[in-house]
């Protein structure tokens, strides 16, 4: 996989993960181009499209589009299910996930993705194992935030 983009129906990028080195300008360009192309497609259309020399696989969940760019020899259907598994992971972690969860906890969305996919390849496909890794980290986190014993002074800034 070369990259994954999450964007809303309004065309706002919510998460972007690049597995190939590209400059910021190019990333922005690709983002704009794909968001535009995909939003213009009708609901019943096929989930795959040829784009440059890549294949784009996308699926819409509620107000969010999940879109992956894969290479010529990669498998489209299994990529659709990669998307679905990621949605399941988010859903399980946040408890019926919605777009707002991803906006306000974008860092968590990235952490979950890193546990699931690394370097553009599936690292761990078991839902339990991925969530266990994330929850362990959260436990570490909670234990540590207890040490703070309250909020910092400039918390509201």
């Amino acid at each position, binding site marked *: 996989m070369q990259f994954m983009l999450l964007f809303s129906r309004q065309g706002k*990028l919510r998460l*972007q993960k690049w597995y190939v*080195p590209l400059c*910021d300008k190019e990333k*922005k360009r690709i983002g704009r181009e794909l968001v535009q192309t995909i939003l213009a497609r*009708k609901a*019943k*259309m*096929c*989930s*795959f499209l*040829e784009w440059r*020399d890549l294949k784009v696989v996308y699926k819409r969940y509620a107000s969010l589009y999940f879109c992956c760019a894969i290479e010529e*020899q990669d*498998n*489209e*259907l*299994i990529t*659709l*299910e990669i998307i679905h*598994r990621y949605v399941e992971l988010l859903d399980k*972690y*946040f*408890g019926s996930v919605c777009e*707002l*969860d991803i*906006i*306000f*906890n*974008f*860092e*968590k969305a*990235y*952490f979950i993705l*890193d546990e699931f996919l*690394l*370097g*553009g*390849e*599936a*690292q*761990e*496909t*078991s*839902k339990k*194992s991925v969530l266990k*890794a994330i929850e362990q*980290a*959260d436990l*570490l*986190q*909670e234990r*540590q935030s207890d040490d*703070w014993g309250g*909020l*910092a002074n*400039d*918390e*509201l*800034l």
Partner: protein
Amino acid sequence: MPAVSKGDGMRGLAVFISDIRNCKSKEAEIKRINKELANIRSKFKGDKALDGYSKKKYVCKLLFIFLLGHDIDFGHMEAVNLLSSNKYTEKQIGYLFISVLVNSNSELIRLINNAIKNDLSSRNPTFMCLALHCIANVGSREMAEAFAGEIPRILVAGDTMDSVKQSAALCLLRLYKTSPDLVLMGEWTSRVVHLLNDQHMGVVTAAISLITCLSQKNPDEFKTCVSLAVSRLSRIVSSASTDLQDYTYYFVPAPWLSCKLLRLLQCYPPPEDGAVKGRLVECLETILNKAQEPPKSKKVQHSNAKNAILFEAISLIIHYDSEPNLLVRACNQLGQFLQHRETNLRYLALESMCTLASSEFSHEAVKTHIETVINALKTERDVSVRQRAADLLYAMCDRSNAKQIVAEMLSYLETADYSIREEMVLKVAILAEKYAVDYSWYVDTILNLIRIAGDYVSEEVWYRVIQIVINRDDVQGYAAKTVFEALQAPACHENMVKVGGYILGEFGNLIAGDPRSSPLVQFNLLHSKFHLCSVPTRALLLSAYIKFINLFPETKATIQEVLRSDSQIRNSDVELQQRAVEYLKLSSIASTDVLATVLEEMPPFPERESSILAKLKKKKGPGAVPVTELEDGKREGGELNGGGDRGPDSSAMATSNASTPSPSADLLGLRSAAPVSAAPTSTGSLLVDVFSESGSGAPSAGVNDDGFLRDLEQPTETSDTLLVEAPGDSDSAPPSTASEDPAPPLPEADELLNKFVCKNNGVLFENQLLQIGIKSEYRQNLGRMYLFYGNKTSVQFASFSTTVSCPGELQSHILPLLPLNVQTKPVEPLVEGGAQVQQVLNIECITDFSEAPLLNIKFRYGGALQNLTLKLPVTINKFFQPTEMASHDFFQRWKQLSQPQQEAQKIFKANHGMDTEVLKAKLLGLGTALLENVDPNPENYVCAGVIQTKSQQVGCLLRLEPNAQAQMYRLTLRSSKDTVSKRLCDLLAEQF
């Protein structure tokens, strides 16, 4: 606060995000962000040391701002500080920031690498994973340099936790993709392959991606993975849906791993071991069987996962292309999907069938679905699916169904999406040509193409129809008649006018017997379109008119009147005006015989690869598959645009010397009334003379290799040869009649020279007057070069003389030692118009040299003295003898040549494409041996050779490292002589 905040929730961050979301306008958002940036900047700069939590929060805010699409130019240092925090969440945010906003600032990279190093050696699996994720996300060369050695150790160590192994495997994969030269598996290979046997499914899932990538590059080293992959696959395929617990996905056991296993097997040919192969065929059959079973769930995830495996299995079956039974079964399975209600499945079935169509075993089975596919082309609502259907029709087309398929594609073209029309046109044109049984059908098809989609008919397509009509006399009459009828339409496409003008100009006589298409009717029809056409088409029509005058003397007066009209003869376009003037003059002064010779029918075009195919190949896509089998000529290499490709442009049309190399070089030899084609051996086809292997223009000694070299190796008689001297030694200069000194070399002389570094034959130079072709051959320290001087004009060159001199270093030698000894005889001082003379140079390399010899040419054209100097493409590499050697020997010699002055290196930007085959051809053309399996990185090229000079031999080693991503090369040369290394490096840096 509208949303949940998991974990420690940074309240300040959530407030900031809410604020941004509440902004009513873009301006308000930018204002809020600038305020935040100012705040963060002051916090970071402030005197008060920030605690870890605040740092984390601000870094996170910066990250959020960046992800909104704003530039962030600070905070990197604070993020790096977070990496060394003991607190997991701080470290985690630090790593996230680095992963997203990596900056190639080398100072920081060193700090980041330090932090990563600490975490990798911490033995805390969570920290180790974070560090590995960061490396995998950034994947920079600096990181590869720092960690490529360490990670394989972590990957195979017995005490590494499973989760760390998973991260290590994919981390290594990413590094291998960016810097393959730095990731050396060597001793780890077999242990990595055995990860396929690991008990933990997650480890296998991660490791197999790495193994697949490594196998693609080094199949031999990893080939033991085949049997391991087959047995793993077999265990999964035969397991019950509950056996694999959490690795079962919607009742499908381990779909991701299954797909990856099948993908890995596609890196290899079918297993040789009968038992392994049997087991694999069994697996494939089971997968095909399971696809037929009733679904265990109605969820689309179930069917997607199942079918993902099925499609991957079919890919493997197609890759093997050796099991007819499986191929036909695959085809039938896909046939069912063609009418599935899921658009995705229809799309994939069409795509996959396209490759099945190219297998001899399944081609017929694919053809049975023709009606369904045609129906898809007509009814699918999604253009990408229709595109696949069109591709499949193209792929399944053969002689038996060509007429039906071409007809369907033509009718689809009328409504096809603009985005795919041009490709469709090319495909129709190719199919029509390839399967034309009778050429009248072909002509009809192409004319229909122009009628339906004229705007999308590229030059190649209409050039091609003309080439075919000219080469096949059985279709010429029909073509003339059809095109005449097509031109009757009140509005016809300009491309139709071009084809019509060309064909009637050549073959209008074949239909002139019918009073309805008498010469004058034909002319009036063509001329009625004239004013609506663009300049190039008008130019072509003018040429058609002059051809008419030859074909039909009765039209002469009418046409002359047209040519004489102000709108032609005073046309503001110089090309049109010149044609009008010249044609008018030609038709008035030339005798009928001359006219007939000049305007003779076009000779057949050389049969080469269809230019349309070349064009389609440039466009990619699955349709490209069957193209290869279309190539009859089997011409290797890049030179596709040879003679067959040259369009029948209007100037070539007017003259019967089809190979006038430059179309603008003027139409005929109109300046003199001499019949141009009277001396067929010496006119026009300079190139043919230069390159014809049969060698009519070659020296009497004969060009066949043996004779050529035997002759060369004998001491040449010196009696009448002219020893070429250094400049300044003007006494022995040839009896030149021109008194002027040789001109300085042309500005482009170096560029011309560079074109010949990797090849020996071709056109060295060309202007309006003169063309110089070269053919040369070298053995050891000797070479022979034939120079062909072609007079492109119709006027005699007088006092033609040439001199060769070796400039440069010889003056610096104390002894008058020439690095090159070049011997030649003077050429004939008169070169007739259109004629070609040749000169032979015998070259001996005495010692290594950097400056190329100069070739000065002087002659009188009209009254004016022409004086030009070129560099002769004799470069040091011409005296290379290739040396084959094994990896071990190579590196031994490489080390022996390790003094700094023995090495020359350049890093430069690619000037041409980085295609492997082209690169290889160039390196072979250089004269060295291209050594396989020497460089551990298969992307690199390694060459070796010995330069033979009379005084010494110089061994040279070369390494070329392309970096496709950066479009850069690094070239390193080592030789026993510093001047040779440097010169070769300079020469070669211009070649890639």
